[in-house]
């Protein structure tokens, strides 16, 4: 059910506005997927500038995340912190974003310095903002500075106006704010679909895990739907800059708005994929019925579902609470749901008319976007909670309060384990009984984050900060907390148990932004299919997949249509090549060429990504994330930390000790077996790390070699300046 905004409310908002800046401009027409323009806004002095994007930047950074990283690099210095005025939020959709003939082509990439990691973060998000912004004349929006009071930025791509206005009375929470602003800026009901809003929420103001909601108007539900740029706290940066919302309005999206060179080719490739989705989705992933949540039951069956802070990998109640049948009952089934035009994969599911049970909106019936797999696993099983209504409630509040469900789930699970192990008590949690499975306590923790009170403020700083506090103030065993605190680079782990997949341990830790699986998800390829048995095989996968997946972020594409539907041709592809889905990779090459008029092949595609990936790596080094310590992984991501964990899978560990380590477990004490297992697994991880660094062209300390940077064409002087001191 949508939130209805009364005319009086709109009048109140309008009358309280104070215009700080308005500017007229002539929107640059998109050509071959690009406008070659950046809209720069500095909120400290309300400066608005239109910057040309140089040809060399276009060639080396492509767009999307590449543009975000390049703008951010120029805007900050080696000492910039997340809440310094010079930190930026850059939003860029990429050249392919905005086509409507191929599924998954409406994404925006958001880049900033993260409060939770202290280094660069990027997040890929749906909703209509990015494409509408491009059609309004901009390949990127670069926001720097800090406003004194809450502001909104409004881009009208038809009239050619930009305004910055103080907005004191608008609601902060996204599910209301998106509706308020839509009501305010739309001429009539029909006009609402031309509007997209970027916003965050109250909890982003009091935590480091704030997210951004990107809206798209769902005309059937008559509601603004919300998609999330979730990871790394960009919503926290957004609210720290006192931005309430960014709004874009553009009417006139057509099949050729992206002005591609060869629209017929795009249609042809698109038709092929639409047919595959139509023919195979019901028997394959059922993305159209349950979205990414289809994975929940499977993960439990294969012992990969995080339960109780990643201690265990399965639970008897998984199917009952997050199984496909259970999900179909709560998710709306009768309408296709795409987060950009033309996405037949339509995984953007929602539960409608969910009646809230807690918090400031208790009793209201709302639309809950999702839940995605990560949310059910994160706020559900990983916290020992197997209750789909709780998941919906928590999902809704995380979104509207503007916090990342993945980080919220992992940090709550960590706090729960600390509570259960006596590391913290009710005095520390200020009365919250944070035991696994206590959904009331978990919900209250989230409401506290939004209000900025209680233990919610402590927990909202994330696992890393909690760990430091518990050690410093409450005498906690630091080694234990390092082992069970599921973060790397400060970012909370996403929701897969990687203990039995060495490659995925690398896929989490040997990453640029931290343990989000969007660089590489290799669990089945490695653990079950055994397609990458050697260190070299794993390293090759940890080269190829992060590079390939980076490419989605350069182009403004969704990853899901790549491999969440399997074409017939993949049956005849053997070995690890099958995981690449070669036919679909060729689709992307064809799409890029058909949009831009360039002529790349699969190798050049990887090279485009490799340049940006290495640039991001060097950016991390510039900001102080250097060496193997920067890629540290908690032991729980590699193996069993506690006796209970070991004993729960003792047969497996004993068998592995005999077959893989060559030591007979017979007669060994539990402590001895745990130590042997740990030593072996940690040495395997170290060997993997060395092999991956080498494959990526980096030193054993993880520094990209000058020669490698030259070979891939990322030898810009400012890049070399950062790495050269390591070679003296």
């Amino acid at each position, binding site marked *: 059910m949508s939130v209805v905004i009364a005319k009086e409310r709109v009048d109140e908002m309008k009358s309280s506005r104070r215009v700080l800046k308005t500017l007229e401009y002539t929107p640059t027409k998109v050509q071959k997927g690009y406008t070659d323009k950046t809209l720069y806004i500095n909120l400290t002095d309300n400066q608005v500038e239109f910057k040309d994007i140089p040809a060399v930047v276009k060639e080396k950074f492509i767009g999307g995340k590449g543009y975000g990283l390049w703008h951010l690099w120029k805007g900050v210095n080696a000492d910039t912190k997340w809440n310094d005025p010079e930190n930026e939020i850059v939003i860029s959709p990429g050249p392919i974003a905005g086509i409507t003939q191929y599924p998954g082509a409406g994404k925006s990439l958001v880049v900033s310095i993260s409060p939770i990691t202290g280094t660069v973060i990027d997040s890929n998000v749906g909703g209509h903002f990015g494409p509408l912004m491009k059609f309004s004349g901009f390949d990127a929006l670069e926001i720097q500075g800090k406003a004194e009071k809450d502001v909104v930025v409004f881009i009208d791509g038809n009239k050619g106006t930009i305004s910055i206005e103080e907005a004191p009375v608008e609601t902060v929470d996204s599910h209301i704010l998106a509706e308020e602003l839509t009501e305010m800026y739309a001429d009539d009901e029909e006009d609402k679909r031309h509007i997209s809003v970027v916003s965050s929420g109250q909890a982003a103001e009091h935590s480091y895990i704030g997210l951004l909601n990107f809206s798209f108007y769902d005309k059937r539900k008559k509601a603004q739907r919300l998609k999330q740029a979730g990871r790394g706290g960009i919503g926290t940066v957004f609210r720290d800059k006192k931005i309430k919302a960014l709004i874009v309005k553009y009417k006139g999206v057509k099949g050729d708005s992206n002005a591609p060179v060869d629209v017929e080719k795009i249609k042809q490739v698109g038709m092929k994929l639409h047919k595959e989705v139509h023919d195979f989705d019901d*028997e*394959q*992933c059922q993305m159209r019925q349950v979205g*990414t949540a289809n*994975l929940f*039951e*499977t993960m439990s*069956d*294969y012992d990969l579902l995080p339960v109780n802070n990643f201690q265990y990998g399965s639970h008897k109640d998984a199917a009952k609470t997050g199984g496909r049948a259970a999900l179909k009952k709560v998710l709306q089934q009768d309408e296709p749901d795409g987060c950009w035009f033309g996405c037949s994969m339509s995984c953007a599911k929602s539960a409608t008319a969910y009646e809230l049970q807690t918090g400031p909106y208790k009793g209201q019936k709302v639309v809950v976007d999702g839940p995605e*797999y*990560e949310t059910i696993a994160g706020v559900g099983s990983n916290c020992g909670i197997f209750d789909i209504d709780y998941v919906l409630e928590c999902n809704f509040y995380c979104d509207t309060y503007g916090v990342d469900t993945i980080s919220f789930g992992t940090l709550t699970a960590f706090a729960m384990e600390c509570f259960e192990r006596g590391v913290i008590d009710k005095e520390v949690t200020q009365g919250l009984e944070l035991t696994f499975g206590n959904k009331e306590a978990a919900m209250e923790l989230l409401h506290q984050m939004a209000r900025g009170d209680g233990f919610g403020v402590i927990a909202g700083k994330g696992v890393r900060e909690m760990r430091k506090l518990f050690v410093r103030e409450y005498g906690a065993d630091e080694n234990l907390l390092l082992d069970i605190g599921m973060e790397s680079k400060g970012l909370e782990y*996403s929701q*897969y148990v990687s203990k039995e997949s060495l490659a995925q341990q690398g896929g989490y830790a040997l990453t640029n932004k931290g343990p989000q*699986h*969007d660089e590489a*998800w290799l*669990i*089945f390829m490695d653990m*079950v*299919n*055994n*397609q990458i*048995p050697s260190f070299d095989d794993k390293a090759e996968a940890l080269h190829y997949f992060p590079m390939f997946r980076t490419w989605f972020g350069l182009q403004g594409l969704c990853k*899901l249509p*790549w*491999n*969440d539907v*399997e074409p017939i041709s*993949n*049956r005849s592809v*053997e070995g690890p090549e*099958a*995981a690449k889905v070669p036919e679909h990779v060729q689709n992307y090459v064809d799409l890029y060429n058909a949009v831009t008029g360039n002529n790349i092949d699969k190798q050049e595609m990887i090279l485009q990504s490799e340049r940006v990936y290495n640039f991001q790596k060097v950016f991390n080094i510039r900001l102080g994330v250097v060496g193997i310590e920067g890629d540290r992984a908690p032991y729980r991501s590699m193996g069993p930390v506690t006796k209970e964990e070991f004993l729960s899978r003792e047969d497996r560990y004993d068998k592995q000790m005999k077959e893989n380590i060559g030591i007979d477990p017979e007669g060994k004490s539990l402590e001895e077996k745990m130590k042997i297992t740990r030593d072996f697994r940690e040495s395997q991880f170290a060997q993997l790390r060395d092999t991956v660094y080498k494959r990526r062209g980096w030193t054993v300390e993880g520094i990209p070699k000058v020669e490698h940077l030259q070979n891939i064409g990322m030898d810009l002087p400012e890049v070399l300046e950062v790495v050269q001191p390591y070679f003296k």
Partner: protein
Amino acid sequence: MIQMNGRDHDWYEGMTIQSLITDLNYTYPILLIRVNGTFIEKENYGNTRVQKGDDVKIIHPIAGG
């Protein structure tokens, strides 16, 4: 013994592809299966016998996040 995705796996008399899938608790809805390089269609899982020494590949084309 058979080779199951390149690893040793116990074999027993009467083993079929279907029984192997059940034993391994492979519940994922799509599996791409080859026995000694020959692709096995889903409708034949129950009647495809696995012989001692066979090289069985059961690939999960699962994409994940």
